[in-house]
């Protein structure tokens, strides 16, 4: 793993006629930026900069927690906010670090890419004069075919071979640098994929209650919240509509969920009409978007019959409170209640609303505040009735899931009673109007998203992995063989036949090179039996130091 730093950082620039100080400064800064040390420091900074993102709540993930933090630390929070501590991963400083790092990366790999292409096209260099100086060295009887035979053995072992007269040079392991460059280039591609996704992607979240009346279409207004990338307009959203037909959930005896499935019907100009199933872990893939199941709950169906005998139905979703038994809270509001059908006059003080707790499995006795099981074994709806001016006309935005408490505090809305209703039960209020609990519908929480960068992300991650393995496990090395001139004068052990000298040079850290070298030497000298055995301590093979 010793890096072959081919570009010495302090290489003296060639003397130029007009030394330009600004240019020199720029050149030097660039060289600094693309040095390995800078890359290391930036990597380290990147790791450190990510820490606050996990310690402090982040707006993108949990805005409620950020608000909570503001109430808990009124002094500290605004100051932290100013430096982007609640949006670490989009902050100026975090971006600066990774942009610098990637600039450094580009500056680092471009020359290496050029050098590597050159290396790939060039032939292995000539053997050094003194092979015995190389880390690996051996003397062996020259094979019958001489240099050509050696070259043949090497080629069969997929070395890149160059024969020059009596000399063979061979090199192997270009994969290391190829892999390394592929890896670093893929990193850039990953970043581009992420950028594409955030520029051209969009997402929206909402609740969807079962039933044809509750179908929604993919427009910005129909989502509770949407996020559009800077390059996306509302008109760009694909046109389709979704209807929840069925939702199935199974739970274990302990109440722990075991299985979910949502069935929807899709149609619209941009999607063929069809029905589809999806679940946690397996989203519904449409042409221009994916639909994810994030949660589920119950929407109690409540019928209110006003003093003119007119009925209205609410099936607004009740939000789960987070317990195992799916205890849910919500609001059924009837702002149009008690409108005189003859005059059409609204009595603003006669609007009706019911806040309630829905218990899919109510306990046997009071208090009826907590459900014992998530399916409807003993459904009960604990309602509180309110009459008055709900404040819905005042234009003050309020939550759809909660009664406007300002109206209650101002005395404009008055509580008129509480009651626990079982399924099908009717409750007659003090003014003779009636509330019925008809049953429930299921609802699901959906996220609809489109990320055009995801394919690029996936593909570049694949290349990244392949490149990483090549880079980590590839080993660049060279071997040389030279037929030595026969020396008939002396009584040599080989009886006057010619000898061959071999040398090996690992170009990267490679502990097993001695072994490979020995095997190679054995293969060249023809004793195959030995070639496979561990021959690292054969005589004649010297294990040396660099």
């Amino acid at each position, binding site marked *: *793993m*010793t890096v072959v730093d081919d570009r010495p950082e302090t290489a003296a620039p060639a003397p130029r006629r007009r030394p330009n100080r600004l240019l020199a400064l720029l050149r030097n800064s660039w060289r600094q930026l693309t040095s390995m040390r800078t890359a290391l420091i930036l990597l380290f900074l990147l790791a450190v900069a990510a*820490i606050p993102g*996990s310690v402090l709540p*982040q707006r993108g993930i949990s805005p409620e927690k950020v608000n909570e933090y503001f109430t808990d630390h009124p002094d500290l929070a605004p100051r932290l906010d100013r430096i982007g501590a609640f949006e670490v991963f989009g902050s100026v400083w975090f971006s600066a670090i990774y942009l610098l790092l990637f600039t450094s990366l580009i500056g680092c790999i471009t020359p290496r890419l050029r050098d590597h292409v050159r290396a790939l096209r060039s032939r292995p260099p000539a053997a050094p004069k003194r092979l015995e100086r190389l880390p690996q060295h051996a003397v062996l009887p020259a094979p019958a075919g001489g240099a050509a035979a050696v070259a043949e053995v090497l080629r069969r072992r997929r070395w890149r071979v160059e024969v020059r007269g009596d000399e063979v040079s061979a090199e192997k392991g270009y994969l290391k640098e190829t892999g390394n460059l592929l890896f670093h280039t893929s990193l850039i591609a990953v970043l581009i994929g992420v950028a594409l996704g955030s520029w051209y992607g969009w997402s929206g979240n909402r609740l969807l209650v079962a039933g044809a009346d509750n179908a929604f279409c993919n427009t910005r207004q129909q989502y509770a919240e949407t996020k559009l990338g800077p390059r996306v307009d509302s008109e760009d959203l694909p046109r389709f509509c979704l209807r929840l037909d069925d939702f199935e959930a199974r739970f274990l005896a302990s109440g722990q969920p075991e299985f979910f499935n949502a069935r929807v019907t899709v149609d619209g100009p941009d999607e063929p009409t069809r029905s589809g199933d999806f679940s946690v872990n397996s989203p519904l893939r449409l042409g221009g978007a994916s639909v*994810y199941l994030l949660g589920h709950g119950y929407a109690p169906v409540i019928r209110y019959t006003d003093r003119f005998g007119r009925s209205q139905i609410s099936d607004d979703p009740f939000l789960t409170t987070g317990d195992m038994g799916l205890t849910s809270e919500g609001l059924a509001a009837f702002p149009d209640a008690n409108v005189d059908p003859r005059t059409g006059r609204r009595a603003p003080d006669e609007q009706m609303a019911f806040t309630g707790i829905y218990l899919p499995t109510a306990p046997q006795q009071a208090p009826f505040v907590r459900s014992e099981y998530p399916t409807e074994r003993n459904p009960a709806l604990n309602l509180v009735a309110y009459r008055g001016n709900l404040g819905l006309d005042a234009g003050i935005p309020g939550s759809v899931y909660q009664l406007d408490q300002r109206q209650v505090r101002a005395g404009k809305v008055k509580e008129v009673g509480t009651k626990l209703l079982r399924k099908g039960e009717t409750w007659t209020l003090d003014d003779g109007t009636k509330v019925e609990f008809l049953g429930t519908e299921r609802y699901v929480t959906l996220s609809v998203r489109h*990320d055009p960068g995801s394919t690029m992300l996936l593909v570049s991650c694949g290349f990244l992995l392949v490149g990483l393995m090549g880079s980590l496990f590839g080993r660049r090395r060279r071997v040389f063989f030279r037929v030595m001139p026969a020396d008939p004068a002396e009584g040599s052990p080989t009886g006057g036949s010619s000898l061959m000298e071999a040398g090996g040079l690992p170009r990267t850290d490679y502990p097993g090179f001695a072994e490979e070298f020995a095997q190679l030497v054995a293969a060249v000298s023809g004793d195959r039996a030995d070639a496979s055995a561990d021959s690292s301590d054969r005589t004649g093979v010297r294990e040396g130091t660099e």
Partner: protein
Amino acid sequence: MSALSDNLVTFAILAYLVAMICHAVEYALGNTRARAAAAPARELVGAGVGGGGGVPVSPAPVPPSAVADRSARRARIGGLIAVGATGLAAALHLAALVTRGIAADRMPWGNMYEFVLTVTFIGVAAWLVVLWKRPSLRKLGLFLTLVMVLLVATAELVLYVPIVPLVPALNSYWFVIHVSTIVFASGIFLLGAVPAVGYLMRAGYEQGKRSFPYTLAKRLPGAASLERLTFALHAFAFPIFTFAVIAGAIWAEAAWGRPWGWDPKETWAFISWVVYAGYLHARATPSVKRNVATWLAVLGFLTMLMNLFGVNIFFTGLHSYGGLD
């Protein structure tokens, strides 16, 4: 089955404890042997840096006296018993995992307790492989068994939860792919941290430092071979970890609708990845000293621990499957 698994964990801890004590005995008795071997060990440092193959077995030391010889033999026996006990502990450990998996009818990686149990098993199994290939590293076993006793006991005493089935969010083949690779890479990183710390102490010792933590390294294998092992383990684990993180992102896309959302677990995985990448870079850069690079490896492991314990305990995120409420 579940109770059997719990008992097996207890027995495994005891076996690790025995292994640790035997290693300690070897350490204590290894005095003379260490002194005699000190000279070849130093030679080894020089050879290790270059293209030398593996760790040369140091030539048998010439014992100065018969007494020393006997004590060296006892030390050796202690070491061998320690290895045997480690093997036994690993077998019990594996049996505990298998029985837990059978009892739960799924892979035993559903919560922090099971996770730590599996990671430590991978660590010890990889250690046995290393030991089999490089018996001369045996004395590192003292530190490894110490880590095992600490982690497995923490798992049993602090993290233990009874068996529950997986929530649907985890019920996916990505669970097996993502978690098994994370567990595997973590186990190797865990093992890698042991020679990393060993190297830092041993390198100081070889430089003549004789104060507290360095003296502990007196009988460790040579610094160069520890460093080499550290690198080999990290180079092996890093691509697996990379794959695991990518698999996690693919799964997150399917489950939560986005491949990467800077959830605390994801953030810390990113931090670990960057730190380990920093280690590989630092080690590949000749101008960075080896001990600086190795510190990065140790830091990397601390970030893994933070992700495992810290994030599960202190933060809430989508990855809240620790089982500790």
